[in-house]
């Protein structure tokens, strides 16, 4: 780590850059190299159009929590031109007798039209895209047209698309099971749950490079660092796939072979077989439904909100909010994971449930069982990922 701190990152190749970022964490990396990043980005003039579909604004809220750089440093000092972001701009859509009024200085619809027309921007999508009812997209309207139409136009002219949060990546809460899920027919940008054939881009026949930043919400480091890497040319936007997993998540943040469980702050309790069976305890949360062993994210290293905390550290079982198929993959949240199937087929059902081991069993006995269980769980997830990915050795990143 020490020698990397003194390395000129501008001369690093992509692979080294991403490795360093992965090793140090985005906050640390950006903090150490801020002046160089500022210098590099002052030379760029990157335009960003940020649109909101079916969402809760949680991802925008989360990105506002970013630091080193924070959103203002990223935008203001780093010469990123936010051509459109509806929560941050001055303008709104204004129609007088049905016609767009005024100019782009007051009217967001004109501003957005002009920005899309100009092309050559990074499109950030927050929120799912309504396709229902019957492919009309009318369950989500936006300034006199459907959000689906807006997305189609904006995606067609973008050089690259960054989908952030579970709604824009895989459908999120909007595509969770209910008996109207087919009616509302919400889609992610390039996927619906784990299925790339049902992404909205495929539906619309648009081919654009996409990076998915998973999470409910997305961690600001994941978003801002990916943006920075794209702007700095550390990610080849015409061919980002080598640094992505099969769900188009950057491997540097969502490692294939490591789960959150490996670095969980409560991991020690798991290894010695101490499990909480009631909330507000200090031990391992496995029996309370923790999905950490199935969750491929660096949450446990990076943590949240400026690294002050993370879910399991605060006594809450991981709900696997960055795996495609969230929510249904990990509900019921508070039921032991062996009886549900997070991330599709990755659950190893041969692992005996230790949900009912009960308090009568001695700590050491549970410990042995649990350790064995841990190994099996870890291995099962690992093996499933191995099988799923192709040409593993050709991947640029492996951790």
């Amino acid at each position, binding site marked *: 780590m020490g020698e990397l701190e003194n390395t000129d990152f501008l001369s690093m190749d992509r692979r080294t850059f991403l490795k360093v970022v992965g090793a140090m964490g985005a906050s640390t990396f950006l903090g150490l190299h801020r002046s160089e990043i500022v210098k590099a980005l002052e030379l760029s003039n990157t335009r960003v159009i940020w649109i909101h579909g079916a969402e809760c*604004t949680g991802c925008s*809220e989360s990105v506002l929590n970013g630091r080193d750089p924070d959103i203002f440093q990223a935008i203001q000092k780093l010469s990123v031109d936010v051509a459109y972001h509806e*929560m941050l701009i001055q303008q709104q859509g204004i129609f007088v007798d049905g016609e767009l009024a005024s100019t782009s*200085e007051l009217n967001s619809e004109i501003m957005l039209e002009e920005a899309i027309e100009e092309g050559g921007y990074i499109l950030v999508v927050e929120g799912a895209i309504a396709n229902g009812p019957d492919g*009309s997209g009318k369950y989500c309207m936006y300034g006199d047209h459907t959000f689906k139409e807006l997305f189609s136009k904006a995606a067609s002219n973008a050089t690259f698309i960054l989908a952030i949060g579970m709604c824009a990546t895989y459908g999120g*809460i909007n595509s969770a099971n209910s008996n109207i899920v087919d009616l509302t027919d919400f889609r992610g940008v390039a996927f619906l749950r784990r299925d790339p054939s049902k992404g909205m881009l495929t539906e619309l026949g648009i081919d654009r490079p996409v990076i998915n930043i998973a999470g409910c919400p997305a961690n600001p480091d994941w978003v801002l660092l990916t943006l920075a890497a794209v702007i700095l040319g550390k990610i080849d936007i015409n061919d980002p796939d080598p640094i992505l997993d099969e769900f188009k998540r950057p491997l540097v943040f969502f490692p294939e072979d490591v789960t959150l469980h490996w670095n969980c702050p409560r991991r020690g309790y798991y290894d010695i077989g101490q499990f909480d069976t009631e909330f507000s305890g200090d031990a391992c949360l496995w029996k309370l439904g923790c999905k950490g062993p199935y969750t491929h994210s660096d949450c446990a290293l990076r943590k*949240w909100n400026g690294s002050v905390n993370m879910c399991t550290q*605060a*006594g809450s079982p991981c709900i696997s909010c960055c795996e495609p198929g969230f929510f249904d993959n990990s509900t019921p949240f508070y039921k032991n994971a062996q009886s549900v199937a997070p991330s599709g087929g990755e659950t190893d059902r041969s692992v005996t449930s230790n949900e009912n081991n009960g308090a009568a069993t001695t700590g050491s006995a549970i410990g042995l069982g649990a350790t064995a269980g841990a190994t099996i769980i870890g291995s099962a997830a690992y093996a499933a990922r191995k099988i799923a990915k192709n040409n593993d050795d050709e991947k640029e990143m492996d951790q």
Partner: protein
Amino acid sequence: MTNVTIDPLTRIEGHFRLSTEVNENGVITDAQSSGMLFRGIERILVNRDPRDAARITQRVCGVCPTAHAITSANALEDLFGIADQVPKDALVTRNIMQSLNMIDSHATHTYALWLPDLVNPAYRDVFATADNMGTMLWKELLHRFAPLSYRIDGISIPPGQTYVNAIKEKRRLHGSIALIAGKMPHQMSTIFGGVTYKPTVADIGKLSYYYYQLMDFFERYTLGMDHTTWLDNTYRASSPQRAVEFMIEHLQELTESSISSNDFSYSAGWGDTDLLVVLGSELIGEEILGLPVSFKLDRTGTYSDPANIGFLSYGAYYDVENGDGYDPLEFGKSSFLKAAFITGSLERKTFDHMKVTEEVSHSFYTGEGDLHPFDGDTEPVRNADEIDYHGDSQSKYTWMKAPRYDGVPCEVGPIARMIAMQEPLTTGLMNTFSDNGYSTVNTYIRMVARVQEMLILLERLIQWVTSDLDPSGRFSVPIDMSMAKDSQGVGLWEGARGALGHWIKTGSDSKVTKYQMVVPTTWNASPRDSNGIPGPIEQALIGTKVSAAENMLGIDNSNPIGILHTSRAYDPCIACAVHTIDLRQKDGKGERVFDIV
């Protein structure tokens, strides 16, 4: 008659459309408020494990997830029959998280979302009528409140000082919630039976440190004075009249010293609140203090018929000093923020949640009648042709339902809470408006109430953190799923934007058969009901003048700032308001079968 439509209304959460008719005098004569998105989240809850509700319902809104988590936990604790057993320290922890989220939400709304409207170029021209002083004031406003990526006449304006600093405070506020709740947005700690995390002594230290940093921001920028002095003389004033006198005297001093120097900067003592309360009101700024110009916000956002409006607060914050637990039927009586229904003539009545109903005659749902949330059944229109926002006030035009209390549309939010708790500055200002021929409730008082609530909460927050929280206390009670068999629960609480209610029912398999949320913006941005009575924002828009400072420089339909001020002052949150529909499970076989026709 001209149709002026705002779509989208930006700087809010979600997709919101306001369609208005403006007459030849520039006065809005009709208004329709529309939520533009349908998601169906309540439906997703049906047939699930009820314990998941406090996680899933937060996904309705990333701005006020803590309010949804706590409201949902309240409903679950009622459902499981453990509401009176939740330990005190869990409730203190929830109070801390909620107050931090409410302060965060208010600060974000005030600074990042609402105040940028005051730097609309129309006001440059309005302020130019006041010569040098006006020009200096305009520069000061731009310097403080200009938003990101802003241009006037092609010239880039740098983001305002407090705008930028407020976003940094927001980050700190989210971090402080995350410290005891895992992460934000979408906190992880609040669950059925308590909280998942025991705050440590170190956490208390950190929270106190965050608090002092926050206070520094509020005193330096928001107030421009020591907050204790402000609250002692307003919130704790001996009478509403005294509170207003204190504020006016303070403003008189500031104004007198700045009138000759034309210096309205922070260093001259002008906090953001001072600028807002002086320049926002025609009565206070122009008539009482003698300034030559104001935004005239006290002329906007008023209600013309007290019979058609009420103010509603469910109450919030557990009464942790006086025992444990949430009592669904008594909640809000001894809470710090009180439960009350206040009529349009400001008559206070006891709140009863059974008087809450919703109906859908102007919403894109099928179904009839006013139904209590325990009974409500709704169904979205399925034919794309039926989803049309261009109809008139007689048509269906929104995804929001029309909630009513005892048949009356209600405004919810800071002003309803401040009236319910008889906050002296708010009620004093309302009396002052009323005595001087102004409408008692208006856009100006809405904004002042929000700022005042933020300051009052800050003080209460530090008390919960340093006095009431015991790290060695208990933080949760266990539950058994069978306790949820054939049961029901009600969760009442206050989000930053107002009264938030969750209603849940379960079947013989202990799974959810019905989940219904009635949220603040559904109240405020409600459409008409079957009697043709408009919702609060619609009523507040009708009668408002369309352009800057009451059409002071003529009518400009292409810059309808009047619509923006009035509607945005309610801090609309559309994702919450259009959350969805609820259903009943029809069979007991564990299949997801609903009564959709």
